[in-house]
């Protein structure tokens, strides 16, 4: 019985990491596709989202099974509950990557439009956060998780900058409004990805230390 739950927990950990890897890949590919205007790559990202969705359901079923059959407590309970939430956030990150990929095709088809340089930096920052929050999950590292929380502010700022720039551009070149709105929504998606990474980081803090830090400013 004892060893069973440990095995189940190990197994669950492997699974959630597999979802994490797929999502990380999807995000990185969607950004590359965006920067290189690579519609083929964007297509592949969209096609792969189904796999992430399927694995998300599997992980959730696995969590429910452990809760029902083993009634975990303490660290085990916090782990399973955190995985349930992390799983959900990862799936939504996958959807955001798919949305970015969708915009790539539209941007390529529409009027030519320069990407604001901030997008690239912002995308890098968000990707770093995704990588770090997954590392924090693997290592159960609350310090790394706290760092991720702090990095979110920079992404939010970049997002505001891009929004202001897009508004200016729309005023200057109203004929490009559609493409510019797409650029704006891409930046919104990237910002949301960073938010999800922050959520995951907060779940890691709960998983390891048992403190719910959501809705509290990072210290």
């Amino acid at each position: 019985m004892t060893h069973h739950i440990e095995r189940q927990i190990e197994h669950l950990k492997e699974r959630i990491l597999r979802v994490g890897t797929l999502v990380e890949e999807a995000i990185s590919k969607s950004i590359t596709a965006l920067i290189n205007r690579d519609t083929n790559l964007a297509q592949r990202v969209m096609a792969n989202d189904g796999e992430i969705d399927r694995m998300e359901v599997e992980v959730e079923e696995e969590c429910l099974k452990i809760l029902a059959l083993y009634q975990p407590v303490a660290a085990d309970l916090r782990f399973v509950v955190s995985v349930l939430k992390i799983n959900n956030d990862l799936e939504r990150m996958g959807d955001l990557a798919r949305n970015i990929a969708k915009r790539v095709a539209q941007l390529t088809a529409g009027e030519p439009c320069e990407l604001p340089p901030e997008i690239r930096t912002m995308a890098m920052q968000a990707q770093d956060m995704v990588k770090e929050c997954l590392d924090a999950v693997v290592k159960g590292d609350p310090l790394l998780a706290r760092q991720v929380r702090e990095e979110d502010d920079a992404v939010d700022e970049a997002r505001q900058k891009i929004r202001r720039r897009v508004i200016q551009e729309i005023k200057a070149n109203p004929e490009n409004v559609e493409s510019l709105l797409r650029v704006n929504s891409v930046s919104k998606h990237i910002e949301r990805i960073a938010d999800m990474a922050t959520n995951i980081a907060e779940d890691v803090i709960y998983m390891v230390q048992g403190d719910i830090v959501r809705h509290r400013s990072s210290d």
Partner: protein
Amino acid sequence: MNIQAETTPERGGNPEAFSAAVPADRLQAVAAGRDVPAEVHPEVREVTPVLEIDRFNLWYGGKQALHGITMPIPHNKVTALIGPSGCGKSTLLRSVNRLNDLVQSVRITGDMRLNGDSIYDPRMDVIELRKRMGMVFQKPNPFPMSIYENVVYALRIDGENNRAVLDEVCELSLRGAALWDEVKDRLHESAIGLSGGQQQRLCIARAIAAEPEVLLLDEPCSALDPIATGKVEELIQELRGRYSVLIVTHNMQQASRTSDYTAFMYLGRLIEYGSTSGIFTKPILRETEAYVTGRFG
């Protein structure tokens, strides 16, 4: 009362906890006979105690079975004692109503106070003391008499013979023990004919008929099947708020389902004591974490 000093806790829930690391240091220290202060959660310090256990030591001959136990047992709450076999939880429970007096080689120091009255005061009348507590054992022990007479037994030996009083106490106690509906039509049949679970609830009814200040339950479900266990557990939950209950259990899920406070004991020492939700979601010590997650014991 004097609660043992705080210690610098080793935080539970570190990543190694997932990889089956059984913490050895504190447990080894305990095994080596060193004094390890208990980790008492802040919420326990604020309770109104019905029973105060104060620096209580107990020896069986030369062997010390309880080491400096200091803990308040809260009024009108359910408190569970958990820990691996031989940790002293039953010894502690039996010390509350001085059942260990019957064991010849037992020696104790320290004290326990029931609503302020010293239990181990030499002037304490043990029979009077035991009347103030109810005790229910592992195996149901109904007396070989009718259901009715079992329940009102305590009143009878106190000389109560008023039929109306006895009838009322009988019904109230059986209702309190969630047994009334099952036995109301056969109150005057032998209690021995009841099922195991019913017998155990009858023992609880008999205990609460005497309006005890504290109800002591020593693994009350370990001889029962899952259905009967469920009923007794439900009953314990219903007693909460009306009775002060101290329960010893081997079954951790039982502790988590039925109690408000949980104390973890190991080799005769109190290791960690806190609200049940605290102990089962966020224990402070790695040792408690390892025990409640089933990694040792």
